[in-house]
């Protein structure tokens, strides 16, 4: 009798355990974890087994061996004798170059177009609308091909190069040729002067803001800053005897040599990315400005704020809170879209590393893993920076 009661109690506690929501939730989560780990383990095992069945070696040792191919455009010294690791670095730097330049230019163009769309000037507003609607609704790859093949075709050949600014800048179907400034040692002082003025300008701005807040007196901050930025480095230039030994591009048998050479692939990719992303940024900017209710503007007007102060102190700070989060995803998109470079032959990381290096070394799994890690790092870094900025400008609740 007593025994059967005990059994009953045990059974009850067991069944109550099954119906205990907390227990069930833990149990299912553990089960899910086991399944996921098991699945991951199976994928890794299967990959290794299949690679071994085909006599393929695995591992990252190949990074130290000679790559054996050349790359057309590189920011660091690179030759056929360099290693696969160098190819990796060249690819990362080329991707970063186009992504960072692209983000800066797209932001500038996007803000201009976004504000233009809200312009009271009918033609400007219509033009901005047409730009946004046309660019946003065409695939980026198509636009890249357009910029590359259509624009390249219309460029003159090397012998008929367009000469801009009296023989220092040349444009032809091989790219854009700029003079390359070679600073002497004393030029370092000019650079130091610029940095000092920039730092000084930062403190000057803080001081002028505090002055306005405390006394209401305005300080002409921007003209003073620009004046300092011109005068101080120029003085340093003359005092220290700094000089730029400019290296101009010169035509030889096939092409220009010397100077800075920007290949048309880079120019086309940059154009395509900037123009495409700017259309999205313009819409984000417009949405941000429209989101600030007209009551805010009217209130600022009735307080007697000037037009510029109304924009700088009331509208823009509130609009930025709406603009920044979606702007971040546009920056991420631009960085990731730069991988379309492969279509027009710009040597970014996907082209040289995931393309040629993968093909020549045969290390598909390792190479793709490394490339994914690069994009993940870029994206997470961008997100961190933008989230930090977003937190700074967020509405301070008291």
């Amino acid at each position: 009798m007593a025994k059967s009661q005990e059994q009953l109690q045990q059974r009850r506690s067991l069944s109550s355990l099954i119906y205990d929501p907390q227990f069930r939730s833990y149990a299912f989560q553990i089960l899910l974890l086991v399944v996921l780990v098991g699945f991951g383990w199976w994928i890794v095992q299967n990959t290794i087994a299949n690679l071994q069945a085909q006599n393929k070696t695995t591992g990252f040792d190949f990074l130290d061996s000679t790559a054996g191919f050349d790359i057309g455009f590189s920011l660091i010294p690179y030759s056929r004798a360099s290693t696969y690791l160098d190819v990796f670095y060249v690819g990362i730097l080329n991707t970063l170059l186009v992504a960072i330049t692209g983000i800066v230019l797209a932001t500038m163009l996007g803000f201009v177009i976004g504000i233009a769309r809200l312009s009271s000037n009918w033609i400007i507003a219509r033009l901005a609308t047409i730009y946004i609607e046309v660019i946003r609704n065409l695939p980026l790859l198509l636009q890249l091909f357009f910029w590359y093949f259509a624009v390249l075709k219309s460029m003159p050949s090397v012998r008929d190069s367009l000469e801009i600014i009296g023989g220092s800048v040349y444009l032809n179907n091989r790219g854009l040729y700029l003079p390359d400034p070679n600073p002497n040692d004393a030029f370092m002082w000019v650079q130091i002067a610029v940095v000092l003025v920039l730092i000084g300008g930062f403190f000057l701005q803080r001081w002028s803001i505090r002055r306005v807040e405390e006394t209401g007196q305005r300080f002409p901050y921007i003209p003073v800053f620009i004046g300092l930025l011109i005068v101080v480095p120029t003085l340093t230039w003359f005092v220290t005897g700094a000089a730029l030994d400019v290296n101009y591009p010169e035509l030889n048998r096939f092409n220009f040599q010397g100077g800075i050479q920007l290949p048309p692939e880079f120019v086309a990719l940059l154009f395509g990315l900037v123009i495409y992303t700017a259309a999205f940024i313009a819409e984000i900017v417009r949405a941000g400005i429209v989101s600030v209710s007209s009551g805010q503007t009217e209130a600022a007007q009735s307080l007697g704020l000037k037009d510029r102060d109304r924009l700088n102190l009331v509208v823009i700070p509130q609009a930025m809170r709406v603009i920044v989060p979606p702007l971040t995803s546009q920056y991420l998109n631009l960085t990731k879209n730069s991988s379309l470079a492969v279509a027009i032959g710009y040597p970014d990381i996907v082209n040289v590393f995931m393309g040629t290096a993968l093909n020549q070394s045969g290390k598909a799994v390792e190479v793709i893993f490394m490339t994914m890690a690069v994009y993940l790092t870029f994206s997470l870094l961008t997100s961190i920076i933008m989230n930090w900025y977003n937190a700074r400008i967020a509405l301070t609740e008291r």
Partner: protein
Amino acid sequence: MNKKIVTIALGAALGLTASAAYADTLDDVQEKGYIQCGVSPSTPGFASPDENNNWSGIDVDYCRAMAAAIFDDPEAVRFTPLTSKERFTALSSGEIDVLSRTTTWTMSRDTNLGISFAGVMFYDGQGFMVPKDLGVNSATELSGAAVCIEAGTTTELNAADYFATKGMDYNPVVFEDQDEVVKAYDDGRCDVFTTDSSALAAERFSLADPDSHKILPEIISKEPLGPSVRQGDDEWFNIARWVYFSLLEAEEYGVTQANVDEMLGSENPSVRRLLGVEGEFGSYIGLSNDWAYNIIKHVGNYGEIYERNVTPIGIAREGSLNAHWTQGGIQYSPPIR
């Protein structure tokens, strides 16, 4: 409900133990009823589709020969156009069964890349093409030139080697797709277009003005182009290899598409073995005994394939490496016996 799903998922995960996805290619191929063959997207003479998507070319005919040997049907093959960058991954992953895509046989590919080459369908070498008005007569004058190249090829490596050993500078402009390389060269993006000399000859006719371009005399590399299969499946490798050899054997003994039925009654023991009248050579590679008969019947011998595809693009066989060994070339096959 939840528990059921989880149980099923767990069971599935445990059931799928580490298994090679392609242990027996012949069985898989026979089961699905066709061969998946990786070819060039568009290289005249080697593999290119016409407006009705009918493929032709020497690489295409090799795949048709394999299909004829296995299925007695040269149409039992599906073609996957691949860029040079995609080709090895497509083969390794099992997306295609055989890679017949102007692929150079090299040591690293034959060993480290996990593929095996069955033979050499075409002996080629890398050359250069330039516009005539550049006034260049030799590859040694190319220092400083911009060179259009296809990505992921031996061409890319050979060019780097060549310019480095000659102590010359150059600017490589690399595209993923042969068509884009040709287009960029035609648009004047590069001074030089380099690839296998057979492809140069073929692609020259796709330029806007073929007569204003010329191919330089230098051949800077050895490019034995041949079909390849995955390593680790000997049966499938044997089929791939002996399909190639049978094309050469048939040519050697004068067996052609036209006279193959007559030849069944031949007294020559080599012909009788080739066509399966004598011996059981088909069973050695897991096929029926008339495997080679079917190849010749449907596709023809090596000479006929060459005549049909490569001669029209202007590359003579006579006196070249691709001539049969009895004609002074190096196309040679071990005997079937």
